[in-house]
């Protein structure tokens, strides 16, 4: 196999990994803090893509359209948190998981009702290509990777250098004790959930120009996102980043070696990693609860 294919494969893998990370980070925080499995994040992902598409069609703008997508996703996640999750946090994890799946399926139905079944193409903000090691790669993919890097840095800063971030880390360890110190943990929950929803929406909006925007897009990434969360280790942001890029590469490079591997290779990688480290790469003591 020749070098150019590998270079574009790696860039493709990193940009896929970036989308996976934005989705998995929210999912991982929702589990770490509220102990819910929030499958409805995939709905916010689809909604982010569709709103970005719609604003793009209406105005011709691209980046602002993506911002609108992320904000719309955040707004919907806020409504769902207030209406639904706020009432069922105390229930069993399977209950919240099935509820979130119901929201996802209903939401996908609503998207089909509004936008139809036909996949829609979305405008790309930057059409230019740039030479990397003598190979032309799309600038937009590199920007997606850079934006994800910036998002990661901002989340790390929030977690480690602000009081709310400290409270979130403390609550991931022992939420009852954080409440016992006078913190209204339900406000932390709302903030985290909406943050996760916005990240999911951003993921969808950024992904839009790279794929067709279609009603099933959320359901299609479910296995990959779960793999990322599990390989990285629940509750570790760094683990989620590493594992997102890893899964991105396995999908991308695997398909270069042998096309059907794109679907199968990540599962094989996950199996091997879990055999070696059952709690995931950066899985920590946070799961003792």
């Amino acid at each position, binding site marked *: 196999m020749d070098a150019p294919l590998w270079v574009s494969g790696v860039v493709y893998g990193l940009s896929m990994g970036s989308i996976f990370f934005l989705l998995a980070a929210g999912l991982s925080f929702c589990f770490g803090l509220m102990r819910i499995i929030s499958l409805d994040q995939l709905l916010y992902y689809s909604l982010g893509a569709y709103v970005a598409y719609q604003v793009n069609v209406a105005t011709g703008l691209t980046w602002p359209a993506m911002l609108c997508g992320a904000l719309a996703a955040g707004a919907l996640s806020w409504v769902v948190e207030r209406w639904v999750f706020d009432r069922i946090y105390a229930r069993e994890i399977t209950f919240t998981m099935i509820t979130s799946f119901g929201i996802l399926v209903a939401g996908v139905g609503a998207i089909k009702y509004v936008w139809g079944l036909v996949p829609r193409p979305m405008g790309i903000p930057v059409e230019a290509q740039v030479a990397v090691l003598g190979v032309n790669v799309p600038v937009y993919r590199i920007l997606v990777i850079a934006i994800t890097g910036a998002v990661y840095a901002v989340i790390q800063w929030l977690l480690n250098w602000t009081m709310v971030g400290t409270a979130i880390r*403390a609550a991931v360890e*022992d939420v009852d004790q954080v*409440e*016992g*110190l006078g913190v209204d943990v339900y406000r932390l929950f709302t903030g985290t959930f909406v943050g996760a929803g916005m990240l999911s929406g951003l993921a969808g909006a950024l992904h839009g120009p790279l794929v067709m925007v279609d009603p099933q897009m959320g359901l299609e990434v479910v296995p990959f996102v779960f793999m990322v969360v599990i390989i990285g280790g629940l509750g570790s942001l760094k683990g989620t980043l590493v594992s997102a890029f890893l899964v991105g590469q396995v999908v991308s490079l695997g398909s270069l070696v042998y096309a059907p591997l794109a679907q199968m290779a990540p599962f094989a990688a996950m199996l091997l990693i879990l055999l070696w480290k059952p709690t995931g790469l950066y899985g920590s003591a946070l799961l003792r609860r």
Partner: protein
Amino acid sequence: MALLELEDLHVYYGNIHALKGVSLRVEPREIVALLGANGAGKSTTLNTVSGLLRPRSGAVRLEGEDLTRVPPHNIVQRGVVQVPEGRRIFGQLTVLENLEMGAFTRADPHGVREDVDRVFALFPRLKERAGQVAGTLSGGEQQMLAIGRALMARPRVLLMDEPSMGLAPLLVEQIFDAIQEINRQGTTILLVEQNAYMALQIARRGYVLQTGRVVLEGPAEQLRENPEVKRAYLGG
């Protein structure tokens, strides 16, 4: 008027009647000991005061105001803070971050800074380890941190659940000295202890719980001399 008053509290865990009409008072600036065997209802009483458990009937009053409908985080803001059994510090956070968590709801950074210094003056060991991750502290240091973290909320009433648990005798002495010092600085304390001997040395008054009821109450020196207390809790 008593600073903290519990009146005829009935608390259930499902069908289990854990508190069967507990009444007690804590006057301003007192240390009051709450004694009893395992399962007598001591921790249940504290958790009901701090709002983690809700009584089926009865009242918890802070300066006459009922707390039984107030959410736990508001109870802390009104000045009732618990040092939980088993310390429950945040092991992945640094010592300083743990203290800052105790002051989460306060909006006076200057006062918070002062209170960090106050905690460090009380427990110099914590100052030495301020930047260290709390999970690496010894049991005694973790207890100091749990107390320090509670003090960061500037409590009027400090609820302490078994501060001596699992500690060597020398450390227990240190912790109890600190409790007395905190009390001298003006904080009222309701102290739950299995170590009745130590508790009755620093307390002014005490209550003895047995299977969810107060069976004895009185000044600490009187309880120390009581033959039943001696036999059951003081080893003869």
